[in-house]
């Protein structure tokens, strides 16, 4: 069976303040005169290596684990997952 790497990004939902992202924007990026940048959101990335039959199967399984074990808190966070074959 092929090996996949599923990268899960956990970030605050829109509307939930993100002081880390705001600080990076205001006190670093905008001070560097990059006025075209309007927003930065900080997050956490978890990379799962998994053996599965298909790409979709790998992604579904990892997202199910994230839901069941509350890897992210659905009240304030959202997850997005991308898959690549190793």
């Amino acid at each position, binding site marked *: 069976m092929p090996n996949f790497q599923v990268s899960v990004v956990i970030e605050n939902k829109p509307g*939930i*303040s993100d*002081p*880390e992202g705001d*600080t990076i924007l205001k006190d670093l990026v905008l001070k560097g005169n990059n006025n075209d940048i309007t927003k930065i959101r900080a997050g*956490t990335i978890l990379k799962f290596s998994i053996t599965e039959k298909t790409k979709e199967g790998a992604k579904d399984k990892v997202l199910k684990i994230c839901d069941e074990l*509350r890897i992210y*808190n659905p*009240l*304030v966070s959202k997850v997005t997952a991308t898959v690549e074959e190793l």
Partner: protein
Amino acid sequence: MKVGVIVFPGSNCDRDMYHVLTDVFNLNAEFYWHEKNLPSDIDAVVLPGGFSYGDRLRAGVIAAHSPIISDVKKLAEKGIPILGVCNGFQILVESGLLPGVLLKNESLNFMCQWTNLIVNNNKTPFTCKLQMNQKIPIPIANGEGRYFVDDESLNQLKKNNQIVFSYENKVNGSISQIAGVCNSDGNVVGMMPHPERAAEKAINQIDHKPSSLIFESLIETIGMKN
């Protein structure tokens, strides 16, 4: 009357809590490692502060999957008083026993300072000897203490009288300055500040009596039951 103090890998306020329960308030307390079971005849349970699992992933989330939490849930359903302090509050929230979530402080800093709490609900097993709006001088020590719930849940908390403590002043960006909440039955209480660090005169030069009343409330509650 037996109080269980749960110890997780990384708990560091467990001995302070045990000392206050036993030496200051003469309660019969016992430590319970998080992989053990809690006796079904226990009278109260305390989840102490600390950094369970080094706050990895999110404060309290890994400890919320500890085997002992299923016993805590059963006891909570039976109406047994359960108190979570600091990391204990985070664990209760992550295990679904209390509503809301504790985010990183607005400053992103670990905050260790004295604050004033205001009592918003004096009907819980841990606040029944306090007066409404009574002020409690008490320390906080946390990095993830910013309480958050969505607007609908906040309205529910207010309606059901589930906000137990709020900060007198803005401290860390908590919504409605909430410092402690309870479940809808009122027997499970979580709070970010540390009553075990404020209930003795030797370590609280401002006024140790209000924090003492948190423990005296518990004694009154479980004493009445036995």
